[in-house]
């Protein structure tokens, strides 16, 4: 699904990722943990294709080098990033945003675009499944949403857009336990042999609900340790310092 080789990234001449290697196979869920400033969010941004980074190395997604492919095209190819800080877009109804997004993705796949009725049915189904109040969808996109509502909205979008490679950028931070469970439910119910996840998190608590296949520790722009679920528990006890 995803193969990253010797990825280096810098912004404003400041080097952030310094030779990162990572392979994610279809169906796998990888967690990336690491201290503040280790490059976790940069990795998420670079994978999604955000402008402004100087990049070298290789990112192959489904066998294709992503280097020259812009953000929107990557999204249409099935890469989804759940934002750490979802953006507010005043005046834009969440439903309309999501419908435009979904149809844009469906169109590029050669699938039929959904009409309003079909779309609303899909929304209803997915929000009920996750236990999210669909009322938030008739509000302006993320405007006046609480932190938890924003994150839940990201997960709902993930469910509806049905991507293949899902990157969660600290989706768990700032969530209460109920919201955390909704996020976990969204992820767990989406896991299948065709989808891969890259879950960026500070805390082990999300991994109590989502069982990763691999846990990586990112420090100073490199993966310094890889293990399975127990590594996260260990980190929770000992902190990152001991690893250095």
């Amino acid at each position, binding site marked *: 699904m995803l193969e990253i080789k010797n990825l280096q990234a810098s912004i404003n001449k400041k080097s952030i990722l310094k030779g990162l290697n990572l392979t994610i196979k279809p169906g796998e869920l990888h967690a990336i943990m690491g201290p503040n400033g280790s490059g976790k969010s940069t990795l998420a941004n670079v994978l*999604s294709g*955000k*402008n402004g980074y100087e990049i070298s190395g290789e990112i192959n997604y489904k066998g294709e080098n992503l280097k020259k492919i*812009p*953000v*929107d095209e990557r*999204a*249409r190819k099935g890469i*989804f*990033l759940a*934002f750490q800080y*979802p*953006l507010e*877009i*005043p*005046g*834009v109804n969440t439903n*309309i*945003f*999501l419908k*435009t*997004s979904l149809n*844009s*993705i469906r169109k*590029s796949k050669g699938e039929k675009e959904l009409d309003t009725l079909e779309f609303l049915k899909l929304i209803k189904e997915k929000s009920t499944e996750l236990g999210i109040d669909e009322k938030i969808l008739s509000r*302006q*996109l993320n405007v006046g949403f609480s932190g938890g509502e924003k994150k839940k909205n990201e997960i709902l*979008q993930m469910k509806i*857009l049905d991507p293949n490679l899902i990157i969660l950028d600290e989706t768990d931070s700032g969530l209460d336990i109920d919201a955390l469970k909704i996020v976990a439910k969204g992820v767990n119910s989406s896991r299948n042999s065709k989808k891969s996840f890259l879950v960026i998190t500070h805390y082990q608590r999300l991994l109590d609900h989502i069982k990763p296949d691999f846990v990586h520790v990112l420090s100073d722009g490199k993966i310094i340790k890889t293990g399975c679920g127990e590594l996260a528990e260990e980190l929770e006890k000992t902190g990152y310092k001991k690893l250095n």
Partner: protein
Amino acid sequence: MKQQELEKTSEYKYGFTTDIESIRAPKGLNEEVIKFISNIKKEPKWMLDWRLKAFSRLKNIKEPNWQKPKYPKINYQDLYYYSAPKSAQDKPKSLEEVDPKLIETYKKLGIPLKEQEKLAGVAVDAVFDSVSVATTFKDKLTEKGIIFCPISEAIQKHPDLVKKYLGSVIPITDHYFATLNSAVFTDGSFVYIPKGIRCPMELSTYFRINASETGQFERTLIIADKGSYVSYLEGCTAPMRDENQLHAANVELVALDDAEIKYSTVQNWYPGDKDGKGGIYNFVTKRGACRGKNSKISWTQVETGSAITWKYPSCILQGDNSVGEFYSIAITNNHQKADTGTKMIHLGKNTKSKIISKGISAGYADNTYRGLVDINKKAINARNYTQCDSLLMGNKCGAHTVPYIKNKNCSSIVEHEATTSKINEEQLYYCNQRGLNQEEAIGLIINGFCKEVLQQLPMEFAVEAQKLVGISLEGSVG
């Protein structure tokens, strides 16, 4: 060469001309030309006298130049003041009799008259160049006593109404362009809604400038008698031109006691090419008088075209408890310039006005909101709320807000809010990450920014306007 031409055409979707032979008045501005126009319209003497009076006053009025966008001097002797499609000589009795070329032009514009007649329930008084060629739905309106016809016809058939109201909101000598219009106006719409009648459909007119070097001087007069209601839509596109074309229409609205007029405009005239060459000068005078108590006039405008847009649809709130509203979206891209806003003149007691203005600038464009809120001594408890938001795209464009507030009354409340913001890269990134391309993302964000105004438009217009908003800004971020 051919390739180039094709590319040019694709840039401006509606840039085409039809080769219908035009009948023209001789070039130039003089009494003879005014008599020619009056004669060809078969006007009564009082109308000709009215025109000539305006013309004689025009000689003593100077063209204003206080506006922000400057333009090259216009040689008024070098323009044609009348041109009509030949087929209009024998006015068609039905759509079937209309020159098929004209119908085709409308089809290209996406205005299938016949379909509109059946589907949308909209009566269309279409102006092709200077002459109205087709008026539909007449019977349905006649039943209710509503008059909706070309103003040239109203001058002949309803002289009392025209005499009473024409020039009563925009006086003949108001300012240079209004006076010029009074002298040489060619055609336009006339609407009269009788007492207590609610007009059963949206009234709509499509204006279109076609013959080259022809200044267009439409004249529209809408009268809503006591307790009546009407919603009027105006939308325009124009073919590609190299020469600048002057458009100086006059629109007068009169609302009597308890009457309401809603006037919506979507303006998409040729804005000139990417380098600012060509394009229409849109110097329109629009003014409404809330003459009766509890009357209401609401202007909604979506301005995306023209090289220079220079207009201030205004409300004179004479009647007690009358209400004036102005909702505006002005989009300027490339080298377009706009100096637009409104005037709310509060004269009556408890009069209220609301101004919502959204200005968007991209490329090298310059966008100015200029507005006047004038509260008279006698306008006890008058109330105004103004909100002006500007959005900048890129760093070579400009946005300016010039509010004038005159308050001579201590019982009144005037509020003014203004914001200026830039389109946010992070918002675009977020939209892109959800699979929207740059254009879709911009369209979405801009439509969100303009939402309060778009909501004011009648349904069928709103959809069209939303698309237009996106199209107007294509390629402006990248």
